[in-house]
Every structure is written in C-alpha cells, then in structure tokens.
C-alpha cells in the first residue's frame, strides 16, 4: 500500500489499528449461541414464515376490522331502508303475477271450453273471472273480429 502515502499522506500517518472491541469471551461463546439458534431453526417454524405473518398481521387486522364495520353498518341499513323493502314487496308481487299468468297461459282453449261445459265440476268461474281471462288472452281486435261473425 505504498501508493497511499502519495494520495493520502494524512491518512497514512494514522496508526492502522482496530478501534472497536467486543465483549469478553464473545468469540469463545459465539459458536455455542449459534448452535442453539440453529437447533431452533431446525425444529421450529421457518423464520421466513414468521416474517411473512408478522409483516401481514397489521394489514390482515385492518382488513378484518373494515369488513366487520361494513357488515355491521351496511347490512342492517340495506335491510331496513324503505326502498329496499319496497323492492322486496314488488318482487313478491311480480312473482305472484308471473305465477298467475303462467297458470292462465298454460290452459289451452279446448280445456277452457271443456271447463265451461262441465257444469258439475268443482271449478266455478264468475263473470269477472271470464272477463279477466278474455282481457288477458285476447286483444280488442280479436274480440271485435270474433263477435262480428
């Protein structure tokens, strides 16, 4: 390191010594301590897994907290708002209407007339029922064309 005298004369004047110290018996005890740690490493949970869990713990906690708050506040709010209740009722109404319509549409004309002819049958239609049926299944044009014959 002869060149050091040329490029850094002040530095080369300083006595080259190690200014740091270690606690007494540090190097004598080191391999025993390392051995203990290695034993833990061999038997215990891998350190990187612990690290991942430790790293993600706050994020998981926050996410769980938000999910809980959302569930506790949004869900009851959603259930008890008037709009939602109205929606539910509408849904029920339209469901029953659909069922009725499908029932009426399922009856073909022959069956319908057969039911009318069957005076002793258990099915009884009032005038209003008949009017409803005609309104549902026939247009005004059909009615006029049928009555015009």
């Amino acid at each position, binding site marked *: *390191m002869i060149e050091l005298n040329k490029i850094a004369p*002040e530095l080369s004047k300083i006595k080259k010594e190690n200014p*740091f*110290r*270690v*606690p007494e018996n540090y190097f004598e005890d080191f*391999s025993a301590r390392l051995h203990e740690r290695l034993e833990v*490493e061999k038997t215990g949970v891998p350190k990187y897994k612990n690290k991942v869990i430790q790293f993600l713990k706050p994020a998981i906690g926050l996410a769980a907290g938000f999910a809980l708050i959302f569930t506790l506040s949004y869900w009851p709010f959603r259930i008890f708002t008037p709009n939602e209740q109205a929606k539910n009722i509408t849904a029920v109404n339209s469901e029953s209407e659909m069922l009725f319509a499908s029932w009426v549409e399922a009856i073909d004309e022959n069956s319908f007339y057969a039911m009318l002819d069957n005076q002793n049958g258990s099915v009884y239609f009032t005038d209003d029922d008949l009017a409803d049926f005609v309104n549902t299944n026939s247009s005004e044009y059909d009615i006029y064309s049928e009555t015009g014959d």
Partner: protein
Amino acid sequence: MDNSGLDLITGLKNEKTRELAFNSLVKKYQERLYWHIRKIVMDHDDADDVLQNTFIKVWRSVDKFREESSLYTWLYRIATNESLTFINSNKRRSLVPMNDTSEFLMNNLISDAHFEGDEIQKRLQEAILRLPEKQRIVFNLKYYEEMKYEDMSQVLDTSVGALKASFHHAAKKIEEYLKSRD
C-alpha cells in the same frame, strides 16, 4: 484454495460430516467475518445478529456453493449481503427519517459502548462513514483486511479496475475530510 478449505467443502457436502465441518468453518472464519460485518454495521449487537444470520445462511445454502469461487470469498460475499440487507431494513423500520445510511451508522458509532478508539480514530471512522456504501466496503476490505483486489472482485462482483478506482476515490475523500478538520 488451500487444503483446509477443500477439506471443509468436502465435509460440508457430505451429510454425515456436515455438522462437524460446519463447526470447524465457524471457528475458522467467525472472527474475520465479524470484523468485516462490524465495520459495515458499526454496532456490536447488530454485528452479532448479522454474523449469526450469515452462518445460518451458509448452513442452509451450502449445497448451492459452487467451487468456482473460494470458500473464503463466498463467505465474505454472504456476510456483505447480509450486512447491507440489515442496514436497509433498519433504515426502513426507523421512525426517525434518515437522510442517508451514514447518518444511521454515525448514530451507531456514537452510541457504541465498545468503541475504544482515540479522537483521531474516531475522526477516521467518521470520514469512512461519509463514503458511499460501496466505496466504504472497498476501503475497509483493502485498508484494514488487506484483501487482494482479485478476491474482492469475487466478493463484490466488480472488476479489479473499478475496485482500484473506488479505493483511490475513497482514500482521497478521507484525506480531504481529515485535512478539513485539522
């Protein structure tokens, strides 16, 4: 590579003799690696942690060791990487914002109960800590450990020419700092 190095490698590669060879390796290199790490992280307790991490990494990855490099440079390489990882993670964890690594290490030097150097030694350490990270490692390896540039090249994965230039710049900067404080 010397014969003892080759014996250690043979012992480490064999599962039956691995533990014995590993103990020999620790005994042989613990002190050299400790001082290398200590000059990077400054604090004794931190150096102790990093040295343990280094040997644990060696234990885990001994199968991956390719004999293209010597055992000694491989160990130094792991120790250097572990030290830098430690410094970076400490900087991230620190609640006090640090402008650069030297500030964090300067705090370590000031609070180090195991620093026994005189005023001129303290000034020299301050000057070294002001160097950029890579220059600091190159300077320490050359100045204190007198490592050959060829070996350093394997440790730091840098060309010999670049290492020589790096040492030159480091020495110049230290000289300027020492002169400026006179």
